[in-house]
């Protein structure tokens, strides 16, 4: 679809904003509506749009399946290590109060890191799922690469 000028131009100009909005939802999640899950989906939607327009092969060059697998794990590990850290500091698992000098800051940091972990994993899972379905049953280029 990359020969369609309207799609290409509007996609290119939209994608940065989608990703930016994803990051906004991610890092604003502890104050307002949002959080890691929503942010991850929005961010991944930017990648999906890119793939739809420019093809699976190009998208995979940046988001290779192996890297995505590592990111999926990294997010879970980040979440888990925040929990373990709070345990080491004398609280219960995921007790954010003990993470900083006072509980308010502790809660703030705790939520920020945990949601970042969620965001990373959700983004990577969403992209992986989309790539799997888009590339299903095809050894060579996917239908999305048809006009490459």
């Amino acid at each position, binding site marked *: 679809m990359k020969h369609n000028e309207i799609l290409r131009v509007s996609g290119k100009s939209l994608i940065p904003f989608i990703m930016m909005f994803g990051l906004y939802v991610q890092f604003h999640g502890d104050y307002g509506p949002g959080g890691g899950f929503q942010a991850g989906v929005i961010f991944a939607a930017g990648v999906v749009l890119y793939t739809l327009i420019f093809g699976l092969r190009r998208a995979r060059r940046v988001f290779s399946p192996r890297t995505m697998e590592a990111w*999926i*794990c990294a997010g879970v*590990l980040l979440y888990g*290590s925040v929990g373990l850290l709070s345990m080491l500091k004398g609280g*219960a698992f995921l*007790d*954010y109060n003990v993470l900083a000098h006072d509980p308010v800051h502790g809660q703030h940091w705790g939520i920020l890191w945990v949601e970042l972990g969620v965001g990373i994993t959700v983004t990577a899972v969403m992209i992986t799922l989309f790539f799997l379905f888009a590339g299903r049953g095809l050894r060579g280029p996917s239908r999305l690469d048809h006009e490459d």
Partner: protein
Amino acid sequence: MSSPLGELIRENLPALQVILPMIMAPVCVLVRHRTVAWFLAVAVTWTTFAISLALLQIVRAHGLISYAMGGWEAPWGIELRIEPVNAFVLLIVSGISAVVLSAARRSFEEEIPRDRLYLLYAAFLLCETGLLGMAGAGDAFNVFVFLEISSLATYAMIAMGPHRRALTSAFRYLVMGTVGGTFILFGIGLLYMVTGTLNIEDLHHRLQAIDADRTVLVALVCVLIGTSIKLALLPLGAWLPNAYTFAPSAVTAFLAATATKVAFYVMARFVYRIFGADLAFERFHIDSVLMPLALIAMFLGAALAIFERDVKRLLAYSSLSQIGYMVLGLSLASVTGLTGGIVHLFNHALMKSGLFLVMACAAYRIGSTRLSALRGLGKRMPITAATFVAGGLAMIGVPLTAGFVSKWYLVKGALENDLWPVALLVLLSSLLAVIYVWKVVEVFYFQEPPEEAGRQEAPWSMLLPTMFLIGASLYFGIFTDGTVGIAEWSARELLGGAP
């Protein structure tokens, strides 16, 4: 344990139990190396086993442990609540995971593409996380969340089976399992609507205070249907035989001993600790449904096993029948009956995972578990075949085996409730077990092995854990104080209502 770190670990044991396998699962994926991943997974499963032993000791000495996740106190926060009954279940799940995974390496490497093995180990650990979480969770919603974690991991593991039909079996289980999970969630939702709380103890108190109406009844029915699907009570357990038959051999040994057992525990916990025996049995008479279903499962499962030609599937049908015994114990609603159900949960976990591991040994050498392929196994793999016989005796319930102990309590429980026909049926269904176990034994010992077959025993890394499990099921048939003691204590706690 007086050092600060020791104290820290001691205080956080309930959480560590659940999160250690969860954290190790992504590490297994990151290392991408099958042997390293196996080693890490084995290390972490043995650690969880040690933790569950420690938890059981603490519960025995000081009573229940309540652990507030994130420091938010129950009933508002998420609670992990370790009582006698789930300390026992945690012990079974972590113990079986550790033993089966230790045995599984060679079997997995034979049956599954090697470049995917690290993913299987990750799925195994996630499944263990889910099962331990279900057993440990103190609030109803997290029981559901952990149920989904373990189920999703299970579908993935079954789908990795060597046979093409593993995919369709996994898909069928996925559909059924999702329906079951939805029923449970629906029941929990209704309970939340009535009481406004999700914490199990809090739910119990609030349900006692209000007049139970139809909403509560529907919630009870939904929970019963959902858990019946997950624990494979006939007629809702039709997913089980194929899932067990086509899953990788060692995965079957793991699932048969843990997944349905934890689901049974969830059913018992919901019925007795949320609704309470008074409400569930005196008012809504769930025993009038559960008991006939349990009896049907006992007979139908055993009858299907008799006509089966594949030993793995035969054992799966026998599982359906054994699940009937457990549910029967639950439906008796007495200390003795429930003790029988819980002891059988433990004993059956040991012998069935042992028997499935025997089949993993046979499949490793022979490549099939069909009866026709296993002719003369007594000569070809004498130790493996002898282990099967010992496990088979335990499953029949011959005295001095673990199976006898649990059936003894079930019969005793039925007689206490003046249900002598039920007691008779328990004995009769054991005779059916004799038939299907004998059928296998006959093929192993009284038929000649094929001409070209030599004598080749399974590797010791698989045989030793198998013999350990079967040996344990004989040991707990002779020295019954430990298991029966804990089970009776758990039954009292479950029936006793509020602690």
